[in-house]
């Protein structure tokens, strides 16, 4: 096929995809214009496109599974080859299984009286890497310290004559937990009792600072008399109490039972086992695991586990699960709904700190449930879910955040409205429409600043909706206006008009607390009046008074009352120093310090501006993570202040951190990244690093071109490039003449 016919094929296919099936025929008649070969090709593509079955995905998926099997066969061959041989004083009798690190055999001692059968785990590789070797030794030490009736004992361990490390363990005759429960048709209560024992055993290990890390049914055997035995602390590691109570490891585990922090390579703690216990209980209750990615499609367990809340156990009882639990499917669902759902989901929360605090607490909650007492697990609240949503949808600053914010607002308002009367249904509907719009727009937000215009339209539309609301429900209208104003300001538009309207509404209502009025007044630009009002009912030091002083300092700065401006900034700062450094105070300090840095700079006091910026950065570091946009912006400003001070090395460090933060916090192609690169380029130019400077300027230019394809006149960047080249020329000349 020639390039041009491939091109034609592609174009016609893409257009045809847009059409309804019945329109395609006519379209193809025109487009293919008697070229029957082309037409056949397009038609076969369209047929393949509409086919549900994804052959490519199936082929790759099957190939992957075959490769897995093949590797298993190879491993087994090797492992089986060792049966009958001796390792240390033990003779390997039968291969019991293969796992992450190696194979497990049943064995007996060759030499003396101890004739009892034991289980021996032999590490696969003959030669261990230092990391694996120390892990193996740790495992030995960890297990030796564990003595619990529900945990398989470590009896011995050593290194074979070929240098293979091995562990000798109590041999447990039993069935894996899930199979045992189903075979014995355990009821939900019986399963819970068994689970409670397991959770208590896990807690006992935690008290000795041992985290299992790989809890799953295959690692928990149940003996004939119903005693659970936890096996294979294969990846357990002693948490060193002298260091932090947590540790990071290379992963060696089973993804289906792994916690989000394990899958994302974050810190592993006892909370990790709490999570795995949650998966275990989920499976014991329902017969399936919380996340079941389809095997061949794009679904990805890692992402699901790390980003999504699991479904409630009661919502996913698979067919047949009820039979082995002695209940009808309906009845099983009803038993699970409520407390059991909440308990499992509490253990499965993405953030370790929001799960049960310990395996013991989990076990105790199961105990309370069994005793008919209230449990501590609660349903996840709407507020929490929305907060999660915000975190997940980290898009550009300004624009993106405000979309999410708006969504929050709409949902909150919607709920409020629905709680009240039916007559508000029209508004509710309008809100939900807007919500959908916004979600759709959110997709590409940070990438395309032009979308801000669309967002503005939406905000305007919502503002109109408030008109009607204002008559029927002024309280809600006032709440809504506050959020709208914040959103306008987040995309860089003046919220003043909105805030003034809100103030008007509040003033006409009875019973609004004066601090609310004062804040509304402050927001609406009545900074001085709000300050005076606040002085009547607030005692200094107070965060609102500090905010007032900050705003007054800004106002004074704008009116060129420079001494006032500096004095007010200092007073605000002193007041903030007297307050507890909580989040709000730190945020207020960040705002003040950034603003003051600008004021000092505009008055020509560069070192003073820099001191303020250092303060702002310190505040930011305490309230946001390292890759947050606030850090990026603070370091950007510090960077060029430092550059003005000729402190080039520090300037570079600041700008590089800024780039790191902005690049990870913002959507790709965000103009803020262009600005930063431009600043960095100027620094490199000033220090004679022309090649790097040029590369950054070109990057910056490319970002701006992509962001504003229609409007971006090659202006400042181009100009900087020209200057750069001129400078470079002089520099080179200077060298020649030197």
């Amino acid at each position: 096929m020639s390039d041009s016919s491939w091109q034609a094929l592609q174009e016609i296919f893409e257009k045809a995809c847009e059409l309804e099936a019945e329109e395609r025929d006519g379209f193809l008649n025109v487009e293919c214009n008697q070229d029957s070969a082309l037409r056949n090709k397009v038609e076969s593509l369209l047929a393949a496109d509409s086919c549900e079955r994804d052959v490519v995905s199936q082929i790759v998926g099957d190939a992957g599974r075959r490769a897995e099997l093949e590797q298993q066969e190879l491993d087994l061959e090797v492992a089986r080859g060792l049966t009958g041989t001796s390792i240390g004083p033990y003779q390997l009798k039968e291969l019991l299984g293969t796992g992450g690190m190696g194979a497990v055999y049943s064995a007996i001692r060759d030499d003396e009286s101890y004739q009892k059968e034991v289980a021996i785990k032999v590490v696969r590789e003959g030669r261990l890497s230092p990391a694996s070797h120390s892990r193996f030794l740790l495992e030995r030490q960890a297990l030796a310290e564990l003595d619990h009736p529900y945990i398989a004992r470590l009896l011995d361990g050593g290194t074979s004559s070929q240098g293979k490390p091995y562990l000798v363990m109590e041999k447990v005759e039993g069935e894996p937990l899930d199979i045992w429960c189903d075979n014995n048709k355990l009821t939900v209560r019986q399963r819970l009792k068994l689970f409670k024992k397991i959770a208590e055993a896990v807690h006992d290990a935690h008290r000795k600072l041992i985290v299992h890390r790989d809890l799953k049914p295959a690692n928990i055997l149940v003996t004939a008399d119903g005693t659970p035995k936890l096996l294979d602390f294969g990846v357990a590691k002693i948490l060193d109490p002298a260091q932090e109570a947590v540790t990071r490891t290379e992963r060696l585990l089973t993804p289906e039972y792994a916690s989000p922090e394990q899958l994302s390579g974050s810190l592993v703690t006892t909370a990790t086992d709490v999570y795995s216990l949650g998966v275990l209980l989920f499976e014991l209750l329902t017969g399936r695991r919380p996340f079941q990615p389809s095997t061949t499609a794009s679904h990805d367990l890692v992402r699901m586990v790390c980003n999504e809340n699991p479904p409630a156990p009661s919502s996913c009882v698979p067919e047949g699960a009820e039979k082995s639990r002695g209940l009808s499917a309906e009845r099983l669902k009803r038993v699970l709904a409520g407390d059991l759902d909440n308990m499992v989901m509490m253990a499965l929360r993405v953030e370790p700190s929001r799960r049960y605090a310990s395996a013991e607490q989990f076990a105790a909650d199961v105990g309370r449930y069994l005793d008919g007492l209230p449990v501590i697990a609660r349903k996840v609240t709407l507020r929490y879910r929305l907060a999660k949503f915000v975190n997940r949808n980290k898009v550009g600053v300004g624009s993106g955040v405000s979309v999410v914010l708006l969504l929050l607002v709409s949902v909150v308002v919607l709920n409020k409205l629905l709680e009240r009367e039916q007559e508000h249904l029209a508004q509710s509907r309008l809100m939900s429409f807007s919500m959908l719009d916004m979600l759709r727009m959110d997709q590409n937000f940070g990438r395309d600043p032009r979308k801000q215009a669309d967002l503005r339209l939406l905000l305007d539309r919502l503002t109109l909706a408030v008109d009607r609301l204002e008559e029927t429900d002024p309280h809600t209208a006032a709440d809504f206006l506050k959020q709208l104003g914040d959103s306008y300001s987040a995309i860089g538009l003046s919220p003043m008009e909105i805030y003034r309207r809100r103030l008007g509404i509040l003033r006409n209502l009875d019973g609004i607390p004066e601090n609310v009025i004062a804040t509304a007044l402050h927001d609406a630009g009545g900074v001085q009046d709000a300050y005076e009002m606040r002085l009547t009912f607030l005692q200094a030091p107070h965060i609102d008074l500090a905010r007032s002083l900050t705003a007054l300092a800004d106002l004074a700065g704008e009116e060129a009352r420079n001494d006032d401006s500096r004095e007010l900034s200092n007073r605000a700062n002193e007041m903030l120093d007297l307050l507890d450094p909580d989040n709000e105070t730190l945020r207020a300090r960040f705002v003040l310090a950034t603003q003051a840095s600008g004021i000092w700079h505009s008055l020509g006091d560069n070192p003073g501006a820099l001191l303020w910026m250092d303060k702002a950065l310190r505040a930011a570091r305490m309230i946001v993570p390292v890759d947050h946009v606030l850090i990026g912006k603070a370091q950007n400003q510090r960077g060029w202040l430092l550059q003005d001070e000729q402190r080039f090395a520090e300037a570079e460090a600041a700008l590089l951190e800024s780039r790191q933060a902005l690049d990870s916090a913002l959507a790709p192609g965000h103009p803020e990244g262009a600005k930063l690169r431009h600043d960095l380029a100027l620094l490199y130019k000033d220090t004679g690093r022309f090649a790097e400077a040029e590369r950054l300027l070109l990057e910056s230019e490319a970002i701006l071109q992509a962001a504003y394809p229609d409007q971006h006149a090659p202006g400042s960047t181009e100009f900087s490039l020209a200057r750069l080249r001129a400078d470079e020329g002089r520099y080179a000349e200077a060298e020649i003449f030197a």
Partner: protein
Amino acid sequence: MADASLQQITQLLRRAGDGDPDAYAELLPSVFSELRLRAARSLARERSGHTLQATALVHDAWLKLVDQRSVTWKDRSHFYAMAATCIRRLLLDHARRRQAKKRRGLRCAFPAGEIASEPTTNPDELLDLDQALRRLEEYDARKARAVEMRYFGGMENREIAVALDVSVGTVGRDLRLARAWLQSELTKDERGESDT
């Protein structure tokens, strides 16, 4: 792995991300050998689909090979893209080895793991897919790369977009056409065989 080579790999990745073909060529062997080492262990575990295993595998390699303190999500997309190529090669190696020893009839007697679902395709189809993918590469290299990243690397469209430096919309269109084309090529072969 020593810290020096960690640094080195991270830098190579950066350069590869900036479009330096030499850095790419230098990086590929390290990624490949690391993945092969890990594939030997991880692919052999537990019942689950390839995409899942591949993603977990790549993620492991990513954590191990690359200095996490100094990389961005952009580096990550480039790394994953490279890993997709490696996984394609690994699977092809497996398929070819399998063809070679077809008659030896190795059986797995010990139930160390189950297969989630019975394969519905036959082993040679991976080789056919590879051939078709190579043809696609001649017409349209970018689409072939997108397919590789999607199906062998388990990457999401937005990650592919970053790696290929195109919009997410373009990736979506590329994949739709590529998938339809590959599917029609592969089923054409099936039809052709059954005719004769």
